[in-house]
């Protein structure tokens, strides 16, 4: 049974539908059509919960509620062979590789800022970068996929 949430990320408000899945391979998060904050401003609708917060405050509650289904989807991908995952929660500071790059074991893939440290996330084995799952500035949770090497 899908539940609807409003999520504000970096000032953009999104409407999302969240439904719990038994089949983890199906998409879990279905983004609503674009930011709704502008629409509501124009129509003079009642202020959103997020708007009542201090500017710049992160809507933690909404974000966390929205996240668990997203993570259940992420986990099979994270467990897939060749996918390098975030060793700890943080922010992707730099992405050092692009799809198609050939990497050797030990090459730095992503600089992950976490615990006040620019952590080097390295390739476990040699291969070609199949996909990159993060962009610079993206927040990642522990275990989120970063780069898939095949």
């Amino acid at each position, binding site marked *: 049974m899908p539940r609807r949430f409003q999520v504000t990320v970096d000032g953009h408000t999104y409407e999302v539908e969240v439904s719990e899945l038994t089949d983890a391979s199906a998409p879990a998060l279905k983004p609503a059509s674009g930011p709704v904050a502008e629409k509501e401003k124009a129509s003079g609708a009642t202020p959103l919960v997020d708007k009542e917060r201090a500017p710049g405050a992160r809507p933690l509650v909404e974000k966390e509620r929205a996240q668990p289904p997203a993570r259940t989807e992420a986990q099979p991908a994270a467990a897939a062979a060749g996918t390098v995952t975030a*060793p*700890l*929660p943080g922010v992707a500071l730099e992405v050092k590789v692009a799809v198609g790059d050939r990497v050797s074991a030990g090459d730095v893939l992503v600089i992950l*800022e*976490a*615990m*006040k*440290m*620019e*952590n*080097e996330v390295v390739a476990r084995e040699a291969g070609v970068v199949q996909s990159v799952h993060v962009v610079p500035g993206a927040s990642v949770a*522990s275990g989120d996929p970063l780069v898939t090497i095949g």
Partner: protein
Amino acid sequence: MGNSDTLQELARREAQIRAMGGPERVARQHQLGKWTARERLDALLDAGTFQELGAHVVARVGEPAPADGVVTGVGRVDGRPVYVYAQDFTVAGGSLGEMHAAKIQAMQDLALKSGCPVVGLNDSGGARIQEGVDALSGYGAIFRRNTHASGVIPQITVIMGPSAGGAVYSPALTDLVVMVRGTAQMFITGPQVIRAVTGEQVTAEELGGAEAQLTKSGVAHFAADDDAAALALTRELLARFPANNVEDPPRRPGRPPAAVDLNHLVPSDPNKPYDVRRVIAGLVDDESFLECQAGYADNVVVGWAYLEGQPIAVIANQPRVLAGTLDIDGSDKLARFVRLSDAFNFPLLTLVDTPGYLPGTAQEYGGIIRHGAKVLYAYAEATVPKITVILRKAYGGAYLAMCSRSLGADLALAWPSAEIAVMGPEPAANIIYRRELESAEDPAAARREKVAEYRARFANPYVAAARGYVDAVVEPAETRAAVVRLLSALLPKREARPSRKHGNVPL
């Protein structure tokens, strides 16, 4: 019966025992890339030093089997006596019955009485079903002896074949577990049972191979590529350990360290990682560092080394893994290593660069409080000389945990780059200067300024040194010389704890 007859009878029986499971089974063992029990003992022990004991022991039930599937006795490694038992997979699959177990127990008893290490070479299909509860009882009596010998004599188990069910617990009770890649597997319940109960599909190697037990579970301390490498490593471990808890670990001739520019190794920017193993290489005798549990909880690096020939145990935070934080697995690894090293009289050298404990619900729900407490307990309990060097970050509880002076380090040194404070500059500035930051016109700029102010005032070694929590601030390049001087002066140190049954280590 004349003398020659009795000699012939002995020779006949010995030949039968030496033939083990017979040529076919021995050939199969070789096909699997495994040596026989006797070949393994030849590789482990100094040539010509093995004296077999209990060779004529046989089981009460079934056909008599050569040596009842386990070769036991005493030999020498590096000239020092070691009791050994080697399970023989070619005889009844190395299965453990009552008498097989009794032979192992006899080695454990002799080793404990005489204060010598005991090494087990395990390669066994498990309990001998025909012997029922007698086999089971055999395991129990081995576990009891493992426990009673713990901290008195070094106990090493080399897993060189299957080790399943109850068979895994004797290794787990010993000090060090070495596994052979590809042929050794340890698990409580095997792949078939797991498939039947949980539906998970997993191979024996994925489940309990050397790689899994070394890097995922932390059950194994070392993995080796083959029998020869595993036994060579075991010889090296025995050469480094004392025979018992009363002796000191043997010294070696001193050697200069590797050429590492310690003055420029640690980045001054506290956000930049580096490999702490380079610091270790630059401090200890060249190529003397033997890392223990490499590949498991690598945010903590532990191992034994020599410092001008003096054996030491080295413990370090690793800033390039998990930012050098302390977590559940790292705490367990560190605490166990400290307790093992203290039991066998290795002085502790701790190198500190940690931002604190790893945050997260997984850590809190997993019990980081009680696991982290093991680190405090192990350091405070240890009576060997303890020297701590603070390289860079040392904040709050993690600073205390990493063998701080307050916790019981005999001496604490700090590099000029050390940041020793109650917490990191950012959160500290937010709390201390809360009012100023709230009323500031540009809060972000004010925060940056206050963070810099806090860093300058508190995040350095001199505040702690002013209170005596740091005994000396030393140049990185001078650290080896300082530690050598201080350690040689500390070696005669004797510390006693009140007599008690035992402490209650927070397990």
